[in-house]
């Protein structure tokens, strides 16, 4: 592929995917792999996928339960989807023949008190009922499998279904697969306006206009504006979150580690670097509306990490950044928009990277007019009220 930074979109395309993150690239790749002509337009630079940390979440995140208690039911209903999504990551990367540092190490959600452990025990009961493999480990059993944890940790939930991968490797492999399958990638330009025309849709960009028979909106929180162009309500919101990464250290932390009552996720990548995040806020700021980190999150997040895993105290943070989560109502927004034939939405639920490839497969199936392996009715874009003026 030659370098063409100012590449114009094709004048006409069968399917236009807006958004080149994990969802958009995967949807486009799945369609192209079945011979469809597909283009992806991505405005470049700022997005969830490019800033992702690579956790594969399955158990309900306590962060989410604390922040959005009214949405817990929605997430709980989606738990089997998360389990299937992790399995799909395995199938998908195996099919790509790509080593993306995918490891099913299990996820620990640690407790510092009896109350927190009791909370986890109840959570385990509900998750097991929904088909997850999880159990409670008391202090001794926990410290045997996770000797890196500090004395403040009294027990944990171990969810066997969780793991991690290196998103830098995965994104590069997916990009190579998609473009190799024939996806036309137009980067660094935004879709300014989206309208309906007789033959389908018209997308206007600074580099020209493209007419498409079908459109898939996979633009994270940017989907809201694009859907509104067509009178469709997708109430997606950006949620910038703080992330830290340390210099490399010898393998120490095998699991994906979270906390029952405090916002933290930490894991060690194959590079030896420890990635610390878990829901501390960042904000969108500056003249370019960039996700930007905050001092309070850096201090709170990193000092909590060394409290749980004392050895982390000796590691140095070499970089922080703001990841960009997309929140809707706890569930993904996936599939066709009944009111606008030819329009599809592909916005995953909480932990969108985990859900990405599977969600993309399901949406691609609806674009291909075939029934997806999971009923998308609960995730239909039709569930939101009309667009408010």
């Amino acid at each position, binding site marked *: 592929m030659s370098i063409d*930074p100012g590449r114009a979109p094709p004048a006409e395309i069968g399917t236009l995917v807006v958004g080149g993150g994990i969802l958009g690239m995967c949807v486009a790749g799945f369609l192209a792999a079945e011979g469809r002509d597909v283009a992806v337009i991505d405005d470049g630079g700022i997005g969830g996928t490019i800033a992702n940390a690579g956790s594969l979440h399955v158990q309900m995140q306590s962060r989410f339960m604390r922040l959005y208690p009214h949405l817990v039911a929605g997430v709980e209903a989606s738990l089997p989807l998360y389990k299937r999504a992790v399995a799909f990551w395995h199938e998908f990367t195996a099919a790509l023949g790509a080593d993306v540092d995918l490891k099913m190490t299990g996820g620990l959600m640690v407790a510092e008190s009896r109350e927190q452990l009791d909370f986890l025990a109840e959570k385990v009961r509900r998750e097991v009922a929904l088909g997850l493999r999880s159990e409670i480990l008391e202090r001794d059993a926990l410290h045997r499998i996770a000797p890196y944890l500090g004395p403040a940790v009294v027990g944990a939930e171990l969810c066997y279904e969780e793991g991690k991968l290196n998103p*830098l490797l995965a994104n590069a492999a997916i990009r190579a697969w998609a473009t190799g399958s024939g996806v036309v990638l137009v980067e660094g330009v935004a879709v300014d306006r989206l309208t309906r025309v007789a033959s389908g849709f018209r997308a206007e960009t600074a580099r020209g206009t493209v007419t498409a028979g079908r459109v898939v909106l996979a633009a994270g929180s940017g989907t809201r504006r694009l859907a509104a162009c067509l009178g469709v309500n997708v109430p997606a919101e950006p949620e910038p979150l703080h992330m830290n990464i340390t210099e490399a*250290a010898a393998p120490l932390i095998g699991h994906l580690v979270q906390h029952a009552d*405090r916002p933290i996720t930490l894991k060690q990548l194959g590079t030896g670097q420890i990635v610390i995040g878990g829901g501390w806020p960042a904000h969108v*700021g500056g003249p370019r509306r960039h996700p930007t*980190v905050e001092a309070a999150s850096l201090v*709170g997040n990193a000092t909590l990490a*060394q409290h749980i895993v004392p050895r982390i105290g000796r*590691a140095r943070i070499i970089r922080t950044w703001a990841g960009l989560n997309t929140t809707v109502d706890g569930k993904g927004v996936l599939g066709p928009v009944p009111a606008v034939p030819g329009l599809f939405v592909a916005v995953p639920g909480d932990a969108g990277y985990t859900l990405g490839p599977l969600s993309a497969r399901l949406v691609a199936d609806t674009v291909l007019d075939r029934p997806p392996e999971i009923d998308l009715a609960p995730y239909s874009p039709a569930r939101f009220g009309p667009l408010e003026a």
Partner: protein
Amino acid sequence: MTIEIEFEGERLAARVGESLAAALTAAGVRGFRTTRDGAERGVFCGMGVCQDCLVEVDGRPNQRACMTKVDRPMRVAREAHARPLPPRAEGLPPTTADGLALRTPELLVVGAGPAGISAAIAARRAGAEVLVLDERSQAGGQYYKQPAVDGPGIAAPDAQHRAGRALIDEAVALGVEILAGATVWGAFAPAEFLASTGGGTLRLTPRATIVATGAYERGWPVPGWTLPGVMTTGAAQTLWRTARRVPGRRVLIAGNGPLNLQLAAELIEGGARVVAVVEAAPRPGPRATGDLLAMATASPDLIMDGLRYHARRRAGGAAMIHGMVVGRVEQANGGLRVTLRAAGGGATGPAFEVDTLCLGYGFEPSNELTRALGCAHDFDPARRQLAVRRDADGRTSLPGVFAIGDCTGLGGARAALAEGTIAGLAAAADLGHAAAAPLAAEGRRARADLARHRRFQAALWRLYAAPPYDTALADRDTLICRCEEVSLGAIEAALADGLTAIGAVKRCTRAGMGRCQGRYCAPVLDALLATRLGRPRDEYSGFAPRVPVKPIAIEDLARTPRP
């Protein structure tokens, strides 16, 4: 005064006050750490930026030898990639930003070099309360760095040292508080800073801030430029000017600009054999007369300094080679074999076998803090670097934030002194401290001085005009990103894959993801992409700014600084 330290089980005599880098260099140590790919690295920048001289000190991993002062007996070991984190029985209680030690100075000055100290003096004289933070163990910055050692047989301070000492003493006498050994690593809009000092973290919320963080030396990406024994001119000068140590017995100095000549004179004085000074710019011809005259008119004493350095170079037997650059470095006979090339592409030149190669190919502004804050910057095509946007008083686009000196684009120490006076008075005035008449007159004088120094600098760099700094001399295996060991070939492969955004190249190749925060690879990569893709460079075309601007140990975030 000497003190015994232990390095890899061997006892070495160090001078109290010198850096660990100086003590180890004097003992003949060149390799300080090994990389992921098993390569040896040693002192390169000498100023806490490149992270290549990392060693373990008393069990603490990844300590910069160049920034670690020998003030006690120490056990030092070579560092290796991804070693186990040392045991720690329990963590410290988690804390919050509000739980950190807080300082709320009226005026914060970041950087105690000529610009920062001069600004602090001016603002203090106008009545402002001023706190100056500097990463080094002593104030003075690069230009006025102070001797850290003394004793029989150790060369006494020279005029440049003494001028710096006088300036620092004046600031302290006026009541400026200088906190040395404090690294400002975080800047958060609109006006919040985090610094590591005394083993803990300090939070600062000043009413106004003057950023005077100086500059760092560019890399020179040619085969072999990451080998131990290859260091910047500034690193070698720091060894001599602070510790009175020379970087090796036989030294080749190559680069662009007058600092290389000063280093040659200093190392010869220190007893090193400087084999040659290699200058990228052509030998000044008759057409240089106008520029030399302009310089002599603006700063005759600097011209005299230059003549004196040349005389010492000649007396020391160091050849002066014009119009050539370093083309390749290899390990040979226990030292380095350095092959020159004609500047701007062309014939291979002579080769030299030396212990140490000093590279002084110009500077990049240390604008990490102004970028992190979100101050507007413009690309300066003449200097090929970002310059922070500011008014004649040094005010950036952010209210209450000033930027002065070399962090705004290279202007030299004298311009920095003048800018300090101007910005110091302006910041004090903005804070409600109007300057009395005599002080205001000094401000006017500083503006006249600044104009003069800028004329000098303009003529100087016309004289030293050299071909641009790029990847022309690199081969496929030459590292562009020192930290993550990313070669030009790997970057070319990413470009061939169709990646066009610098962030995408970063995420694909890992270039710029290392400990130095892309300081060496970012300018090269940004220029490469701009050339290949035919697009202009601007404040967004390089890597996005990221904090911490220097790596920060997590345990230090949870601790209160020792006083």
